């Protein structure tokens, strides 16, 4: 068996004459986190649905944990776990009953089932709400319960479809911590997200999906280098200071009307300190200082030549 947890080649899918996946190639090494980044409608969920055997592809091949998704769907299902965008929990059951349902459906047996359920409730900080119905859970708790349900059998490959969309920042961090723990245990994670920061935080490799095509692939550092958006913005009290600063900072672009200077920078502490040190050296006063890191919109603009659909909508 090769070292690929997920190997995808030329995957295609269309609904009627609307092409959703237009020839996707991916390779996810076992034990790594792979993130599929893209706006709504890019084809992320379709990719997950095809790879998790919920949908049939129109063309191309894919193997998950060495099993062909079309010919060996059962074998694929036995080793994967999926947590979708909409929490797949049973609202009319309590948190504990939801987990028990999973344990029973996996034929874990009564004692082992109980042990696994108790451990998961503890691990996901859900023990206190275990007897409450899932319909009374907050968004973050539902997502945690959903993921806990996926982990009842310790799947080798886990698909997380926008696991933090709609969550508050605190729940998002909790979710990130959980993902990191899973990776530390050797699980392969296939994660889709709309947030560059999330991919940046979690993923070993990122692929940018746009209109059903992979437009860029690489580590987060590699992708960011393709994006010119990262810069420092300085505002000055008058034109003289602006001109002086523009003179000493290489590669900067001045906006005379706004009295601002845009300086390319990775935004890191070291480079910012160097930049400020240089201004200090020439005794140039700065009114306002801000660091701009590229976000998904910058990535999209740079990689596809058009803004993401969210940016267009707003």
């Amino acid at each position: 068996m090769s070292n690929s947890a997920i190997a995808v080649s030329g995957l295609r899918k269309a609904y009627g004459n609307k092409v959703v996946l237009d020839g996707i190639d991916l390779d996810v090494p076992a034990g790594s986190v792979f993130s599929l980044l893209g706006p709504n409608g890019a084809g992320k969920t379709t990719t997950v649905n095809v790879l998790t055997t919920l949908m049939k592809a129109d063309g191309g091949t894919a193997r998950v944990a060495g099993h062909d998704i079309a010919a060996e769907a059962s074998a694929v299902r036995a080793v994967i776990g999926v947590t979708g965008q909409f929490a797949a929990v049973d609202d009319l059951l309590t948190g504990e009953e939801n987990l028990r349902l999973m344990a029973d459906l996996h034929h874990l047996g009564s004692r082992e089932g109980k042990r696994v359920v108790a451990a998961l409730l503890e691990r996901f900080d859900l023990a206190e709400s275990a007897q409450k119905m899932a319909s009374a859970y907050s968004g973050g708790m539902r997502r945690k319960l959903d993921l806990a349900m996926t982990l009842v059998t310790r799947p080798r490959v886990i698909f997380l479809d926008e696991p933090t969309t709609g969550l508050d920042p605190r729940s998002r961090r909790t979710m990130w911590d959980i993902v990191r723990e899973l990776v530390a245990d050797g699980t392969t994670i296939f994660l889709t997200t709309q947030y560059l920061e999330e991919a940046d935080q979690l993923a070993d490799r990122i692929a940018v999906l746009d209109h059903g095509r992979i437009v860029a692939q690489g580590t987060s550092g590699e992708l960011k280098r393709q994006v010119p958006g990262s810069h420092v913005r300085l505002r000055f009290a008058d034109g003289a200071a602006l001109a002086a600063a523009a003179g000493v900072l290489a590669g900067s672009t001045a906006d005379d009307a706004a009295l601002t200077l845009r300086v390319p920078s990775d935004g890191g502490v070291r480079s910012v300190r160097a930049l400020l040190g240089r201004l200090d050296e020439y005794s140039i006063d700065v009114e306002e200082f801000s660091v701009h890191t590229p976000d998904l919109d910058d990535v999209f603009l740079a990689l596809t030549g058009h803004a993401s659909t969210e940016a267009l909508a707003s």
Partner: protein
Amino acid sequence: MSAISASLADSRVMVRRNFKHILRNPVTIFNAALMPVVVMLLLVYVFGGAFNVGEHYVDYATPGLIVLAICYGLSGTAVAVSSDMTKGIINRFKVMNVSRGAVLAGHVAATMLISAVAIAVIIGMAFALGFRSPATAGDWLAAIGIAAAAAFAAAWLTVALGMAAKTPESAGMAVVPLLLLPFVSSAVVPAAKMGQGIRQFAEYQPFTPIIESLRGLLAGTPSGGYAAAALAWCAGIAIVGYLWSRATFSQRA
């Protein structure tokens, strides 16, 4: 574990899940049991006096009301099936290799449980309103068997309707014909009293043999012909419902 025993184990888990749903959402069972009682009171006290059916009206209407009691429980099932299909949980079951039959069987079992409660309530009410039956224990057992067959058939058809519906709301609407059809059968008044066309429809639609066979059994005059027709209809409807639900289940992601 063999495929069959795994699928049986899955079914057991799913039936337990659906029973829990009923306990958590008692309104469903309350509606299913209450509405037929309301219809019964209306028929017996408000309209019944005006119907000349040749016997004590409550004795005439009870078999039809048993069938109505089954039908009124169905919308809850259709909505529950559709909710399952439109929420993420069904994808989880699919990805887990849970047998399709198990998910469906859970809903059918839950529907039959609701039917059983509603039928028990309506028979209790019937006796309270003066229903008297010369039926033997054997007749009663046979009547329960036919009612169970009808509930089973209706449950499978409803599961299929719920599967096919796009939203839980439209699923609730899809079973409305099943609530109305008993009125165009011999449930409330004999088909012979209906107009040309309607009468033929009432005579040949599946509810009539089911109701007539129940009526015969409860009146102590069982009719083998009606019973055979009733069971044949139930088997046919159940098979169609089963095949239709399975096909829809496979189609929908």
